[in-house]
C-alpha cells in the first residue's frame, strides 16, 4: 500500500502521444494545416506511385546491369582483372581484421560489405558477369571478412600491426594494379585504361589521406612566427582557394607537363591526384586553423605552466582539441572532395561518372536511358557520402564533441 501511494504521489513524465493524437496534432491541428494535408497527401502518394511504377515497369535497367565491370574498373584489361580482385580482397581482409580489433563503425561497414558480397554471390539470376568464378570470388571475400575478424580477435594482433598493414596494403594494391615492366605475370597496365569506381576510390582515398596532413601542416605554417613559412602557407592557401578546382586540374594536367622534360612526365592519374590533394589541403588548412583559434589561450598557458614544450603542447593539447572542434567541417570537406573527383572527366580520366557518360554516348539506344544511368550513379555516390557522414557522427559521439566542453 505504501509503495502505491508513493507512485501516485510522484508526478510521472508525460507519455508519448498515441497515433491518433499525433495525427491530430501534426496534420489536422488547424484549418490551414488540414487543407495542406488534404492537398499534399494525395500529391505525395501520386508521385510515389509514379516513381515506383517507373522504377519497376518502365525503366530499363539493362544499361546498368549489362556493364558491371565497366562501372567498377573501366577499361582495365579483362585478362588482368584478377589483380583488381586481389587488391580489393586485401583491403576487405584488412577491414575484417580492424573490425575484430576495434569494432564500432568498422563492424557496421564490414557487415555491410559482407552482406553485399553474399547477396551478389547468391543472386538467383542468370547473368554473364555472375558466372561461377565470380560467385566463388564474392563468397571468398565474405570468408575473408570472417577470417580477418577472427584474426583481429586474437591477442597477438596488436593495433600497431594493423596500422602497418593498412599502410602497406594500399601500396601493394597499387603496385599490383600498375604492374611492372618486363614482367610477364603482371605486365604494366597504363592508367589510361583505369576507370570507374576504382579511379573514383583511388582519387578520393588518396586525396583524403594526403590532403589531411598537408592541411594540418599548412594551418600550422600559417600561424607560424617564422615569416617565410607563414607567407608561403598563406600564399599557397589563398591562391588555391581563389581558383576553381577545374582550373587547378587543367594546370596540373597540361601546364605541369610543359615545364617538365618529357621523359620525367608524371602519370596523369597522379597529376589529377595532386590537384585534388592540394585543393582539398587548402580548405582543410582553413578548417584546422579555425579549430586552432577556438582553443582557449588558458589551455596553452596551463600546458606551459606544467613545463610542456611548444611541440608537446601542440601535439597533446592544442591539436586534439582543435581537430575535435572542427571534425564535422573536415568530414564535410572530405565528402565534397569525394564528389569533386567527378571533375577529372574534363582532363580525360574516366571515373565512375565518366564511365556512365561514355556508356550513354556509346549507343544511340542508350541515349534514351540517361535517367537510369544517372540515378544509379547518384545512388552509389549517396551511399558512400552517407557512410562518411555516419562515420563522422559516430566519431563525434565517441570523442564527445557536444558533451565535453
Amino acid at each position, binding site marked *: 500500500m505504501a509503495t502505491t501511494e508513493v507512485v501516485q504521489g510522484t508526478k510521472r513524465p508525460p507519455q508519448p502521444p498515441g497515433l491518433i493524437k499525433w495525427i491530430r496534432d501534426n496534420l489536422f491541428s488547424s484549418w490551414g494545416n488540414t487543407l495542406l494535408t488534404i492537398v499534399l497527401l494525395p500529391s505525395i502518394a501520386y508521385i510515389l506511385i509514379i516513381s515506383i511504377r517507373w522504377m519497376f515497369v518502365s525503366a530499363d535497367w539493362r544499361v546498368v546491369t549489362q556493364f558491371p565491370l565497366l562501372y567498377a574498373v573501366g577499361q582495365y584489361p579483362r585478362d588482368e582483372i584478377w589483380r583488381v580482385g586481389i587488391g580489393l580482397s586485401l583491403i576487405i581482409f584488412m577491414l575484417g581484421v580492424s573490425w575484430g580489433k576495434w569494432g564500432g563503425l568498422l563492424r557496421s561497414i564490414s557487415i555491410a560489405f559482407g552482406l553485399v558480397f553474399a547477396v551478389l554471390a547468391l543472386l538467383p539470376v542468370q547473368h554473364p558477369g555472375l558466372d561461377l568464378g565470380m560467385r566463388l570470388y564474392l563468397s571468398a571475400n565474405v570468408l575473408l571478412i570472417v577470417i580477418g575478424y577472427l584474426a583481429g580477435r586474437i591477442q597477438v594482433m596488436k593495433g600497431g600491426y594493423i596500422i602497418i598493414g593498412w599502410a602497406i596494403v594500399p601500396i601493394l594494391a597499387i603496385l599490383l594494379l600498375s604492374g611492372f615492366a618486363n614482367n610477364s605475370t603482371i605486365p604494366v597496365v597504363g592508367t589510361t585504361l583505369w576507370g570507374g569506381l576504382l579511379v573514383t576510390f583511388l582519387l578520393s582515398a588518396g586525396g583524403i589521406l594526403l590532403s589531411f596532413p598537408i592541411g594540418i601542416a599548412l594551418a600550422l605554417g600559417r600561424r607560424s612566427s617564422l615569416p617565410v613559412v607563414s607567407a608561403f602557407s598563406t600564399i599557397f592557401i589563398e591562391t588555391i582557394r581563389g581558383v576553381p578546382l577545374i582550373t587547378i586540374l587543367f594546370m596540373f594536367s597540361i601546364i605541369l607537363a610543359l615545364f617538365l622534360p618529357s621523359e620525367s612526365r608524371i602519370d596523369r592519374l597522379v597529376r589529377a591526384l595532386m590537384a585534388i590533394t592540394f585543393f582539398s589541403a587548402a580548405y582543410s588548412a582553413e578548417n584546422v586553423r579555425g579549430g586552432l583559434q577556438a582553443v*582557449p589561450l*588558458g*589551455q596553452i*598557458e*596551463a*600546458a*606551459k*605552466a*606544467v*613545463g*610542456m*614544450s611548444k611541440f*608537446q603542447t601542440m601535439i*597533446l*593539447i592544442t591539436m*586534439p*582539441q582543435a581537430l*575535435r572542434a572542427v571534425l564535422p567541417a573536415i568530414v564535410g570537406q572530405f565528402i565534397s572532395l569525394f564528389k569533386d573527383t567527378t571533375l577529372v572527366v574534363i582532363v580525360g580520366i574516366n571515373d565512375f561518372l565518366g564511365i556512365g557518360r561514355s556508356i550513354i554516348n556509346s549507343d544511340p539506344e542508350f541515349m534514351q536511358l540517361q535517367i537510369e544511368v544517372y540515378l544509379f550513379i547518384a545512388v552509389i555516390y549517396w551511399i558512400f557520402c552517407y557512410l562518411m557522414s555516419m562515420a563522422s557522427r559516430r566519431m563525434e559521439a565517441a*570523442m*564527445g564533441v557536444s*558533451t*565535453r*566542453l
Partner: protein
Amino acid sequence: MIEPINEVIISCKNVQKWFGDFQALQGIDMEVHKGEVVVIFGPSGSGKSTFIRTLNRLEEHQEGDIIVDGIELSHDVRNIEKIRMETGMVFQQFNLFPHLSVLQNITLAPIWVRKWPKEKAEETAMELLERVGIPEQAQKFPANLSGGQQQRVAIARALAMQPKIMLFDEPTSALDPEMIKEVLDVMIELAQSGMTMLVVTHEMGFARAVADRMYFFDEGLIVESGTPKEIFHNPQEDRTKLFLSQILQH
C-alpha cells in the same frame, strides 16, 4: 611570528612590465623564502596577477631580475622550462584539459615532461587525488565535475610535477560561494605541509590562517607588506586601509 630563516627561493629586483604603453608593473622587489606562504592582494588592475605570471614566464618582464630556485629567468628557453618544472600554477579558470580524463590531466606532464613510466605517474596521481579528496572522480572528464572539484584537480595536476613552489592566481574567484571552502581547505593543508606558496587572493580568512607575509599591490607597485597581524591590525598606508575596509565590510 618568527621570520623563516630558510634560503631565499624567489628573488625579484625592480621587475617592470609594460603592455603597450601601459606600465603594469612599476618596479617590484620581493624575496620569498623556502616554505613561506605569501598572499598578494589589491584592487583589480593593480598588477598582482601579472606579477605572479612573470614568475613562470607566462608574461615576460622587460626590466629587472627574477631568480627562481637559483635559476635566472631570461630568454633562455631551457631556463624557462626548468623554472616551469619547479613551479606549479593554479588558474582562476582552472584550465583543465577538457579532452582528457581527470587522471590523464594529472599524469600528462609527469609522463611527457618528467618522463616517468605510466604506472608511477598514475600511482602518484591517485595519491594526489586522495589528498585533494576526490579519488572517485579519476575516470571522469572535467566537464562532469563541479567548479570546486575542477579546481582541486587543477591543484593535483600542478602538484604532480612535484614543484618546489606553487603559484595560485585567484584560485577561488570563479567559484560559487559554497565551493570556495573545499578549495581553501586543500590550500591550507598544502600550506601547513611546508609548500612555498604565492597566492593572489581576496580570501582574507585564508591569509589570516596561513600567510607568513602579505603584499598589498596598487597601480603596479607594492604599497605595503607585512605579516597578517601588521596588515590587518596596523596598516600604515591609507590606500591599504581603504581597500581592507572595502573588502572586509561584509
